[in-house]
Every structure is written in structure tokens, then in C-alpha cells.
């Protein structure tokens, strides 16, 4: 019997560092010896750039438009350490339907049994945005990704996007859809930023799998068109990504998150706004938890591991 492919979807608000994080996870998993495919699901089609020296690759949808017929194997390109790179692609901004584009591209790969034939260990979908329509939910539906991780900073809009994602996961959770592995906290350099993400994780009954600091090493790597794992493999930042990848490799049980509803999210954000103001004015933090709601049980990572990146 064929081995089980671990399929993971990584979501997050645009510009939050999702592709950077995803590419570094792919790179780290590949250096651990796994066969990895990274599947960019963003019309910008730049998810895999840092795995390919900064190059853009022809996308599934552009190829489909030009040729009318696509053998999925023709739109897979080798990246760093033989990672299989795919970009779904999509329409130009303001036209067409990007969500349908993702459905078309992912369906094409599934119909042609590509994942099984390549004998992959991991397929990682790097998905834009906050699940605004059925197309962006495609990777979390039944039979596609099993585990979802969301990249989020402490920025409110980023958390809003994560909360929307949780709603999508909750919707598909009882029909065999993907469940939540946890939050990858990105650009965490201030203690309060970690507290905000921690509190959101607590309120929604999930966990933070890693804290990734903002780092100039990442910028330097990306300017070279590389992941940090490739450009600065011995750096502290590379270790952060390697630890994150290892944690994802070890991860087995995901959960159904408990997203906040609109008023609860606004209330929670408003209390944190007060808290941040208080920090700025007096340096005295105020507790900012949302009124208690029943929380599902979740495994939390040991406190000793939380300190990894801070």
C-alpha cells in the first residue's frame, strides 16, 4: 500500500510572511530528507520564488490558458534541494475569479494522481487570504489538506484573517475537512506581540506552534532569491524554521478551532487596544482577556519551547 502523504495548508493574510514561512518550512523538510511539493495558491504566483533563486515559474492556469491542455507534470519545477514547485496562478487583479482558479488547478493535480505518482512525503499549500469564498477553502476540504496552520502577526487584521480561517475550518470539520494544527506567530519581536497571539490562541482553543521573530537575515536571504535555510543555514533564524518544520513533521493531531464571533472578536480587540495604550502610557500592562466562552481542549506546547524565537 502506498505511503500516506502528509498534506498541509498554510493560510494567512496577504503580506504577513506566509510564503517566506512556507518556503522555509519546505526547505527545512527537504533537508531532513523528505520529498516535498510546495503548491502556491495565490494569483501573485510568487510562493516558490525563494526556492528557485528568485525565478517565477509558469503557472498552472497560464499554461492551461495558453495550451488548452495541461499535463500536471509539465507545470512542476524543481527548486532548492529538489523540492517540487507549483504555482496555481490566477487572474490579473480586478478581473476573473481567483477562487475558481485554485479549484481548477488543485482539481487538475488530483485528477491526474500526481501526488501519489511522485511518491511525495509532503504537499504544502501556500494559500492567500482569509477564506473569502469557496475557492480559497478548496485546500481545506475533504481529502485535500489534513492539517492547517495559519501564519499571523499580532496585527489585528492578521488575527481577523486567522479567525475567518478558523470559521472555514469549523464549517468543513464535520465533513472530513482539514483541522487546525496551530498558529505560526510571525514577526514577533515584542513581548506584548507574543501575548496578543497567545491570548487569541487561548480564546479560540488552539495553540501557537512557533514564534518567528522579524529578522534581517530573512530579508538578506530573500534579496538573494533564497530561503534562509539555503542562504544562511547556520543562522539563528534558520534554526527557528528548522525547529518549526520539525514540529510540523512531528505533528499528528489537529483540532477544530472555536472562532470568535464578530462582537466577541471586536470586544477582544478593543480590550487589547486599551492594553497597548496603557503599555505605551505607563508601561503597566492590563489583562485583556475576552469574557469567558467554553473552550475545546487542545494540546499546548511546553513553555520551554515557547521561548525558542524570542
Amino acid at each position: 500500500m502506498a505511503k500516506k502523504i502528509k498534506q498541509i495548508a498554510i493560510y494567512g493574510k496577504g503580506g504577513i510572511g506566509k510564503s517566506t514561512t512556507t518556503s522555509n518550512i519546505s526547505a527545512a523538510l527537504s533537508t531532513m530528507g523528505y520529498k516535498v511539493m510546495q503548491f502556491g495558491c495565490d494569483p501573485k504566483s510568487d510562493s516558490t520564488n525563494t526556492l528557485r533563486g528568485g525565478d517565477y515559474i509558469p503557472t498552472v492556469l497560464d499554461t492551461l490558458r495558453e495550451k488548452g491542455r495541461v499535463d500536471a507534470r509539465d507545470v512542476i519545477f524543481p527548486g532548492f534541494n529538489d523540492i517540487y514547485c507549483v504555482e496555481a496562478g490566477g487572474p490579473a487583479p480586478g478581473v476573473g475569479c481567483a477562487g475558481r482558479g485554485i479549484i481548477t488547478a488543485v482539481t487538475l493535480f488530483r485528477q491526474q494522481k500526481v501526488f501519489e505518482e511522485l511518491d511525495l512525503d509532503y504537499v504544502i499549500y501556500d494559500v492567500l487570504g482569509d477564506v473569502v469564498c469557496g475557492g480559497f477553502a478548496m485546500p481545506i476540504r475533504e481529502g485535500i489538506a489534513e492539517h492547517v496552520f495559519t501564519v499571523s502577526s499580532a496585527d489585528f487584521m492578521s488575527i481577523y484573517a486567522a479567525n475567518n480561517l478558523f470559521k472555514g475550518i469549523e464549517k468543513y470539520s464535520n465533513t472530513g475537512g482539514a483541522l487546525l494544527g496551530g498558529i505560526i506567530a510571525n514577526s514577533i519581536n515584542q513581548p506584548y506581540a507574543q501575548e496578543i497571539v497567545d491570548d487569541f490562541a487561548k480564546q479560540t482553543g488552539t495553540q501557537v506552534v512557533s514564534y518567528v521573530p522579524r529578522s534581517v537575515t530573512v530579508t538578506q536571504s530573500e534579496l538573494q532569491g533564497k530561503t534562509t535555510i539555503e542562504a544562511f543555514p547556520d543562522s539563528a533564524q534558520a534554526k527557528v524554521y528548522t525547529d518549526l518544520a520539525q514540529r510540523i513533521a512531528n505533528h499528528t493531531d489537529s483540532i477544530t478551532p472555536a472562532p470568535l464571533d464578530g462582537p466577541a472578536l471586536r470586544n477582544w480587540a478593543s480590550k487589547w487596544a486599551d492594553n497597548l495604550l496603557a503599555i505605551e502610557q505607563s508601561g503597566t500592562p492590563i489583562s485583556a482577556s475576552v469574557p469567558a466562552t467554553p473552550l475545546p481542549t487542545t494540546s499546548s506546547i511546553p513553555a520551554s519551547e515557547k521561548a525558542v524565537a524570542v
Partner: protein
Amino acid sequence: MSINLNESSVGTRENRLGSITGYSGRLSDLVERSHCGTLGNHERCFSQSSTCNSSCGLSQLAGIRDVAVINHAPSGCTAVAPGIATLDRQMATKRGVTTDTVFIGTDMDEQDTVFGATGPLKDIVREIYRRYHPRAIFIGASCVTGIIGEDIDSVVDDLRDEIPVPLAAIHCEGFRSRIWASGFDVADQAVMTSLVKPPKQRSNKVNFKNFFESARDEIIDIFSNFDVEPTFLYVNSTVDELEHLSEAQATISICGTLGTYLGNALEEHYGVPYIRTINPLGVTGFETWLREIGKVIGKSDKVEAYIAQERAKYLPQIEKLKGELEGIRVVLGMGPGYTFEVTRVLEELGMEVVWAAAWHFDPNYDNGAVPPSMDHLLKNGSDFKLSITDQQNYEILNILDHYQPDIYLSRHPGTTVWAIKQGVPALCVTDEYMIFGYRGVLRFGNSVLDTIRNRSFEKNLAARSELPYTDWWYQQDADALMKEEL
């Protein structure tokens, strides 16, 4: 490419088989490029409407007796329902059976499109089961559900424990393919994934895929000579019959376009041999086909005996008819599973193929091979002019005007009416068995002669019809509005 039964969706003909809807050239070029994999498609800068793969796929499934087809779509997409329901009831009545199949639309509206409608869809499925107790329920996708990403697969999964009959999601979103025959494949996928069970034994049945089973009695009679019994698909099929398709001795299809997916899927997954010869139209086709069936089911002796007996009966009559048909100039427009079979029969009978049009073209079938009819034609010296045109009527009328054939043949009634309005005698070969076997050759040949000898109908209709095309258009080449090959 292997057939994937783990998915509810199946690739379109364009993507799976490299099928095209735009081409103009000669048979030899089409066949050669099909073999070497260089055949591309020509888009058009102007296009008349064609047919949707949704109505094709869902109507195939609605032919099965006592099932429910739920078209999850705006009401306009279900405008085909009365036609489908009427046809299926007529087919059942003709055969002396009853069907309680229902075809239902979910009437998606603005709100359903904005907010999604899987909730109401579930309620509709429950209500359909409560009211009609169908033996299976097929839920069809539409352009709207495709665009909004409506997850009908999860609806099926969710209801599976609750509703005790097979359920299947049918991915026949209208915009996914220009080729309506892609609908045959999604219907086959639904049958294969939701109804067909693994074999427990080999039966004495052969699966016989066809459209309207008009030659049912004749075929049952022929196959009784070889000790096998045909199961006709899908019009008037029952769910019980379909569950046992995997146990048959072979799968046969009256049309290669119709049968490729089911035939190859049953062979690949359950070892049921798929008969891949030229089709049983005309003498050569019928005999080649019968001999292959005889070989596969181990009854070659009986097949040879049958052929000898029938030849003695019919060949003298066919030879006589040939003399009368000799030199008749023909243009034809049909699906590719017929165009390149009927052309063979026409040439066999001494007629001249002036132009052959096919509504699409599959450069290969699901086993990866070029359709056998193509090689057969080429090997026998054919090299007629042809076009691949998805029922682009303006091209057909241009061709008819240019070549002024003695007769136009089509299997789709709308196109023969237009030919007649232009004054060209036309014969609609809608019945898939019209040219089947020796008797079919006689039936067909005589119909051709009747059509061209009684010309008052087209003369009168043409004199009273005003066609929409300008003189300018008739002066152009028929492929003038095709773009560069992709």
C-alpha cells in the same frame, strides 16, 4: 493516462485526451498529427452556441430507471428537464417498462450564490428521498456552483449515513468544457464510483453502451447466437443491472465517443475487456466488430457461422443497392464517434465524401490510442476534406453552399433543418442503429435514395426561407473565422 476513481470529478476531454473543437484540413493530416501528438486547437473569433456538458451528463444519468437527478443550478439550467423527462418516459413506454426517475432543479438564486446553498441543497436531497424513494441520487454541479466553490462533495459525504441509497456528486460545470461529450464521462464516473460493485463472478452478460436501444431486440437476437445477453446502458437501465457491470464478459459501445471512459474504466479496474474495433456500421464494421467480440468471449466459431449465414442473406441485396448509390456526393456533420465511421460506410457503398464535419475530435481515447476508425480510413485510401466544428452552423451552411452535395447527413436534427432550408436534401440519422449491420446498410441506403429522389420538400422550404447569412459569408472559406492554432 490511468483512470482515477478516487475522485468524483473527471478531467475534461480537452485536458484528458487533447480533444479539439476547431480544425480544418484533410484526414491524413488529422490522423498523422493525432499519432505524433502535435494536433492543436483553433479557437474562433466568432462562435454560435453549442451544447453544454451538463445537460449531456445529467441526461445520461436520468435515463437510468427510478433514480433522482438534482441539478444544483439556477432555474434556466434545468430548462432541459421537461425534454429529458419526456424522452425517458417515451423510451420506457416503447420498451414496455416504467420509470419513476425524477429530474429536479434547486433554483439557485442571488442569495444562494452570495451565501452558498449547501444547507438548502441538503434539505432538498432529504425531501427528494422522502417523496420519491429513488434507488440513487445524483447531484449535478453547474456553472454557478463551480464559480462559488459550492462543496457538493461534502453534501454527499454528509448525507451518506442518513440516506440509504447511493449518492454521487456530478462535476459537470457547464463552462469546464466546450465538448458536450465530457458529460458522458462524468456520468460514467458517477456510475463507476457510486453504483458499480466489485465482481463476485463472471456473468453471461455483455455491457452494451448505446443511446436509445432501438435495436434492442435485434441485438439480443444476434447475441443469443453466441450465448451471451446484452445489458443496455443507460436508457432504461436499472441500478441493479449497473451494480453488476464489473461481472460482464465484455463492454461494447455503439459509439467510441460514448464508450471510451466506461469501457476503459471497467477494463482497467475490473478486467472487463473493452471491444475497441471500428464500430458495427456497414459491412466491414459489423464483421470486424463481431469477430473481435467472438474472440474476446471465446465464441469465434459461432460468430463465423453467423456471419456466413447473414452474408448469404444480405450481401446480394447490398451489392444491388451499391449500384444505385454509386457516385452520390455527401457532406456529413456528426459527433466524431459517427462521422469517421459513417464516412467509411459511405465509401464502402461507393458514395463520395465531399466534406466531413465532426462536432469535436478526440485524438486518442482513454487507452491512449488514436480512434481505430481513423487508421482504418487512412489505410483504405481515404483522404477527404474535413473540419472539426462544435456545431457551428454558419460553417456547415457555407460548406453546403460551396460544395452543393447531393445529400447532407447529420445525427442532430437542428442542423439538417438548416441544410434543408438552404435547399440541400438532408437525412437525419438520429437513430444510432440506422446503419447497424447488414440490415442497417440496406435501411440506410434506401433512405438515402428516398431522400434524394423526393426533393419537393427542400425545394419548397428553401423557396420560403430566409437565412441569416450574408452573401459575403458564402464567399469566404468555411474556416475564415478560425484563429491561429494553439
